[in-house]
């Protein structure tokens, strides 16, 4: 790549890398982060609607949104507000359980399962690579079981000996066909 291209890329990237972006994620209209929404988007409405509190439009939801707003304005932190709500409604008000005790399982298991899946898939792949196909029809034919599925002998992989064997098989099949 030419130096000019690198300069162009750097010029485009610089404002973002330096943090001078015109828009930010999860901003409110005024351009400032909405701290109330940051809290309510992690909570469940305590009525039976089961919706995330930040988007809930039921009466309970609206009252709770107002409560979080007021508590923030009175100087309480996110943790304090969450703790007070958990105290009142139980952990069911949290959109995701705390990663401790038995509930740690739900956080860890998906990633462990993914890692285990990758490990297993890798082992299976290596086993498949090492595997000998039972009784291949032709020596040197890597796609012995590929007949009719677009497999077969690839270019540059067939030795002279293999070709002789292929010719012999073709002749035998032709003979059988004529009979």
């Amino acid at each position, binding site marked *: 790549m030419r130096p000019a291209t690198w300069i162009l890329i750097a010029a485009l990237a610089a404002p973002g890398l330096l943090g001078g972006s015109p828009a930010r*994620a999860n901003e409110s209209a005024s351009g400032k982060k909405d701290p109330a929404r940051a809290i309510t988007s992690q909570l469940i409405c305590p009525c039976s609607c089961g919706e995330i509190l930040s988007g809930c439009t039921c009466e309970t939801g609206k009252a709770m949104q107002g409560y979080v707003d007021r508590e923030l304005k009175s100087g309480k932190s996110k943790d304090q507000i969450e703790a007070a709500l958990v105290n009142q409604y139980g952990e069911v008000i949290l*959109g995701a359980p705390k990663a401790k005790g038995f*509930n740690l399982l739900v*956080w860890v298991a998906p990633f462990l399962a993914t890692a285990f899946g990758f490990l297993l*898939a890798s082992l299976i792949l290596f086993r498949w690579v090492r*595997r000998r*196909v039972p009784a291949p029809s032709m020596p040197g034919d890597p796609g012995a079981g590929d007949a*009719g599925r677009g497999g077969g002998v690839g270019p540059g992989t067939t030795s002279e000996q293999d070709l002789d064997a292929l010719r012999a098989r073709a002749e035998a099949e032709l003979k059988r066909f004529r009979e």
Partner: protein
Amino acid sequence: MSEIGRLSVLLAFLCSCFAVVSIAWGLRTGMAGPLKSGRRAVWMVCGLTLLAIIVLERALIARDFSFRYVAEHTSLDLPPMYAFSSLWAGQEGSLLLWLFVLSAYGAAFLWSYRKRLDPFYDAVAMVVAGVMVFFTSLLTFVSPPFRILATPPADGNGLNPLLQDPGMMIHPPILYTGYVGFIIPFAFGIAVLLMNRTGTRWIEEVRRWTLFCWMFLGFGVLLGARWAYVELGWGGYWGWDPVENASLMPWLVGTAFLHSVMVEQRRGMMKTWNVALIVLTFELSIFGTFLTRSGVLTSVHSFTESNIGPWFLGFILISSTIATALILYRKALLESENRLDAVVSREGSFLFNNVLFLALTFATFLGTTFPVLSEAVTGAKISVSAPFFNRVNVPIALALLLLTGAGPVLSWKRVTASVLKRNFLIPVFVGVLATLVGLPFGLHGVYPIVCVFGAAFVIATIVMEFARGIQARKDVAEARGAMAVVSLVEKNKRRYGGYIVHFGMVMIFVGVLGSSVFQKEAHGPLLPGESLALGPYSLKLRGVENKPVANAQHTRAILDVSRGDKYLGPAYPAKAMYFKSQQPMTEIALRQTPAEDLYLILGGVNEDGSASIQAYINPLVSLIWVGGIVMVLGTLIALADRMRLKREEKLGA
């Protein structure tokens, strides 16, 4: 009329039982008569279920409140189109629709293979009939739709206001067409094991059936998201609700199957895995119904909770046990025919793709069911909702996005270093460039950056594949522009249809990224004459008015919307009070453009006369809906390819 309905369902149950017994007898003895009778019985179930549906629809539209179902789900003031769609508003009607779609699949299957005399297809029909027995028995003994009230009320209870949406006219039938359709691949898989059948022809047939219902399920899921977006009024479209998750899981496993089946077709490998995926897809589609009906989990979509959950759970246990036992019994039949040439190959990428799809399904399943599990173990109630799924599922989904770009450009059998360089250099460069371009526009955080890189990477690989295809074919290269693309797609519909599906998926990823990460919000009480600013928009409250509609009273805010200096017109977010339910419902106002949606909610009217307005700008959300349509188009193109089936037929002949 109710007697006709009751009799139809009872006869459908008897016909299903007869079909299973008759076909099983025919298969055992080799006699053609019982096989023929069994097939006819499957047809009969379809006809009888249609008759039952006609009877119930007639009662719903006529508001015949002597039917308990009609009294529970309709009212005199309900518009006729919603009276029609009330069929799937309650449990009994939903089950009847399930059975109808199921029997229609059975009939369509028999029609498709009417000229085949192979008893294998009778075995498939027998499995379908076996599932029919379950649903007809539910409708006959557990949840009958034709119960009659001794004293009919003057008016019914009315329909849940959330279901009074035009989207609800088509969303459930389309979703059911997807869900229920997985019975055919399942039946094929079980029949192969029962009949000890070898060969690859059946797997191509299964792929086509799976692709068909996969398309419907995916489209149904997106329609559900669209319904949530316009009807639930919380500014979003996907809340990781248990019922949403339940519809996503079979789609994910079905997608894994549609990829791994290619390895079986090309290389004769992953046979056990593919049968297991078919079974899992079907079981998850039943599990979805269980979640919706059982009421074990709180959901905004659970309109029909009841006590039939244990029946579904029992069916899942029995059918999965039978399927697993058969897979183990026929292990030798499912042995791989081949060996792999190299780990880095298309086959390898499909295996890792399957791991990721299954991981995503597992995370979704665990998160969805964990509240029940946790309460059983610890005794404390917990919630597992969007904050959990966004943290756990998003990284796995992004890994899948990257693999979507990598998989198709890896060659089968073996990939050399030069191929890797040739196929990956430009897409990686395009991905990096897109990311760098995005940074000044507010692209921050690991996930958004990976998403933009991945989207650009996948699109670059797709464009390169099309360009190479055009270059490689002389006849196609002679055509110009769009015609060359059309001509190329025509030559290999399956391959390029798949690329179009991938392109649609990328659009959805970008739409989700834009509408979640770059969403803007403003809210506040507005008195008449006051304005609310949101990005480039200005929302000025003109006033609040009451407006009666068909079966509700709307209290609506009149907002004058401007963008910069340009006046765009009025918008009417409202609160609807339905006469029957006396529940206040949110009716959003939506201004849609390809670049962004302006989404307005009226929270309520306060005592001082001010209106609580909540406004969102959801950028790029239109890409989600367009992406869904592109995916459907790509699937239809892939389905139109009958080349491989014809080749298999020739080989079989």
